[in-house]
């Protein structure tokens, strides 16, 4: 599991950081992104759907949004 800290970043920066992290990973790897901008709840899943990755879990803990993503094939 790779961890990505995207706290204090405003959308679309967390999406860009997620995209750049996934570029360095391979299919089947998992990425956990922690964010503070609630916009990520919409934007990261949308970005994943478009680019063929799967959001495994979305958690909201203490005003932080944590998304676990499984990297897709492409």
């Amino acid at each position, binding site marked *: 599991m790779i961890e990505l800290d995207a706290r*204090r970043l*405003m*959308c*679309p*920066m967390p*999406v*860009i950081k997620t*995209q750049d992290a996934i570029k360095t990973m391979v299919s089947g790897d998992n990425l956990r992104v922690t964010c503070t*901008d*609630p*916009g990520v*709840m*919409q*934007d990261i899943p*949308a*970005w994943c*759907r*478009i*680019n063929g990755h799967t959001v495994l879990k979305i958690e909201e803990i203490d005003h932080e949004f944590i998304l676990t993503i499984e990297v897709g094939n492409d």
Partner: protein
Amino acid sequence: MATQRKAVALISGGLDSLLAAKVMLEQGIHVEGINFYTGFCVEGHTHAIRKKDKAKPKRNNALWSAEQLGIKLHIIDVIEEYKDVLINPKHGYGQNMNPCLDCKVFMVGKAKEWADENGFDFIITGEVIGQRPMSQRKETMPVISRESGADDRLLRPLCAQNLPETLPEKEGWVNRDELYGFSGRTRKPQMALAEKFGFVDYAQPAGGCCFLTDKAYSVKLTDLWASRGKKEYEIDDIMLLKVGRHFRPKPHFKLIVAREEGENNFLQGYRKQFITLRTMSHKGPLTLLDGTIEDDDLELAAKIVARFSQGRDADTVDVEVAELGEVIKNISVKPFAVDEIQEAWRV
């Protein structure tokens, strides 16, 4: 079988770029989208700040467009490189601080670089001749093609029939007869095409794709540069221009007063970078002081802050001043009356 050609489409989130990409998909082209984040884009963060906007989260229209089209979208952070475009625009600014023509040249140029690196054949945009007064005129179209370095690899599917043939047309990768010849400010042809393709609920931004076309925002940016004596900015500066009421009671400092809880929380995140003022005896907004302070400046600032607290009509309001997160002073002031806050201070 002929090779499937690849086009990279500039996706802003608006209807025109959505349609342009769709026209290419209809012709069997492999299309992927690219979207540049300059820091000023309307898409994105502002909805995260104000509390009232939180109830109805705003979608990112570039992502939405890509999803409608069933294409990939690459979002590129160009915050640093964009500074030079905004600070030194060769072709100048539009009605406000929008350097649209230079911005287009820059974005098409970046898309061309991306296309070269990723083995794409050409670039498409949703530009329409005459749609926007500054950047989308018949004379500016060749300027963008030439100065971006894209030359005849830049195709505008929505108005291609009014322009000279481009490489994808000459080579027969796309059929010119199935492109369009839209021109002028009317939106009717685009709306008809959207209907044909079954797109509903698409975004219709009024001014443009970024905050630089906004008058109030541009005034704040100009004030920032004037006060610093030079044109420069960091991402935090441009974010803060979107938040709160701004007052400049003295040339050397500005106050940013939160307007509601969401902004208050947002400004909290800057406590360790700025001088902050907080009313203690009464509920009130968090205020950032950007600049330097001399002699009586803190008292002046505190009187303004107190005006926006629930103690506005009280004889005295206690204000706590902190610098980089550490409390440096507590002052009691009589809040300014409404007419003591000079109109000229408002930015």
